[in-house]
């Protein structure tokens, strides 16, 4: 286990400059996607609006079959 951790630690310590920039972009992107987008813009509509699966099913059927 220690060897695996050392392997990763060593790898990250010796990252070249371009890889450091890439990691910065990855972390920034993950923050934007999972913190900003997910929390503020992407709530699951059916989970948010209804408390049970029965209600969700009824709602979807109504949406699909309303003439």
């Amino acid at each position, binding site marked *: 286990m220690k060897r695996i951790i050392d392997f990763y630690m060593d790898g990250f310590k010796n990252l070249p400059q371009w*890889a450091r920039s890439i990691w910065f972009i990855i972390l920034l992107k993950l923050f934007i996607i999972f913190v900003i987008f997910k929390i503020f813009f992407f*709530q699951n509509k059916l989970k948010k609006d209804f408390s049970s699966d029965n209600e969700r099913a*009824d709602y979807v059927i109504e949406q699909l079959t309303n003439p």
Partner: protein
Amino acid sequence: MFESIDLTLVNWSRAQFALTAMYHWIFVPLTLGLGFIVAFMETLYVKTGNPEWKRITKYWMKLFGINFAIGVATGIILEFEFGTNWSNYSWFVGDIFGAPLAIEGIMAFFMESTFIAVMFFGWGKVSKKFHLTSTWLTAIGANLSAVWILVANAWMQDPVGMKFNPDTARMEMVNFWDVFLSPSAVTKFLHTTTSGFVLAAIFVVGVSSWYLLKKREILFAKKSIVIASTFGIIASIMLIASGDSSAREMAEKQPMKFAAMEALYEGKTNAPLVAIGLIGDPQDDPMDKTAKEDFKIKIEIPNMLSYMAFLKADAFVPGIKDLILGNEKHGIMSYKEKIQRGYEAQQTLAAYKKAQKEGLPELASLKAKFNDQNWMDNYFQYFGYGAYYAEDEAQLEKNAFKIIPPISISFYSFHIMVILGGHFLLLFIILLWLIFKNKLADNKIVLWTAVWSIPLVYIASQAGWIVAEVGRQPWVIQDLMTTSRAVSQIDSGSVMVTFWLFALTFTSLLIAEVKILTKQIKIGPKKEGGKI
């Protein structure tokens, strides 16, 4: 409901999903193909022990890493959109794809994060063979992580292996293998991944040609071109074969998409394929029974469309109007009939829910219909068409003409994809031939063509998805659910906001990728195979 649907919401939701998917697809195909190219290069290094191959491997591995890192997690947003913007669709299909997609995401994450780490951190720390195995597993893992999303997409175009549960309003998988190995799923996976292989091969030959034009890294560039062109030729052949299968499946399962991508208004026996064409005045919006095929220019290949669709030169290929108006002679049911049957299926479901809530005596007989295969095949199969129902006969006939995809977009996307696909195959062959004749370095026309083929291959790749996705409109699930019914009833303003937020985020990511990639390309490979 059809008339009352907020088309602003539907169109912004469509635009948002298209934007996200198209940006995601900028990064994915290069990862799919470059992983294998790098694995082949490293295999040559391990086999020959030639340090030049190590240098070549490390350089392309670096570009692979940059593209992989910028693209990683961009597909997650699509999953967010399913729950927020496409909640009716997600609910309807959730039991089929929810779990496999989640498992795939976790598996891909662990597989890729483990083996990519060995790829980048493992030089000199693990044995050559273990390193090579990790490189191969990264390439295989990246391609496997595309499996379920492509199976899901294929299922939407050709829904099989499921049963509808009227109690939950959800599709339930009844046969895993029917879903996983449906001809559409197999073809979709092969066609999509091999398109990524061709894209990566063009990327490698394009960048290498630039070095040759700059008179830099001559041996490096030539070796890279040999590997990428060989890989590109094999991938192109697989791409053509899978595209051919795809056309036949489409002709059978999605005949409207097939007719639209050839702008075929009237059905024909011995139907010719329009190899190159320029459509005249657009007649698809609004379209009616008087609409006629209108090409300003066209060059046709006789009988080819019939052969492509049914492997018979004299086969009848239905046109857009045959599919809408029906064609008794060829056993084609009209859309009007399908709308009426779909409407009956929808009303049966509504009546069943009402009977269930109110404890009505007809509950058992209504439920029995959903277990009756004959009724399912003759009525429920057209469930989605019910969205176009109208009491008024004239309006119903008018509505039938709304069940067509945008013809010009489908036609041009298909032809751009095919023409460019042919160009890439020819380019690979010419590059290899010139290298073996030792004449490539002096042929500026071919070298510049290879460089400019990089943007072209991205256009072709996107065009392929446009044919697949725009061509199947108005369906989100073929014949069962229209895009307008799949969309969540949320405020269209919030969809517009997220559209622009995505546009900004993804454009920034793309600029970052292009800047980092071009900088590394200008720097070129390290001299002595040092740190990547």
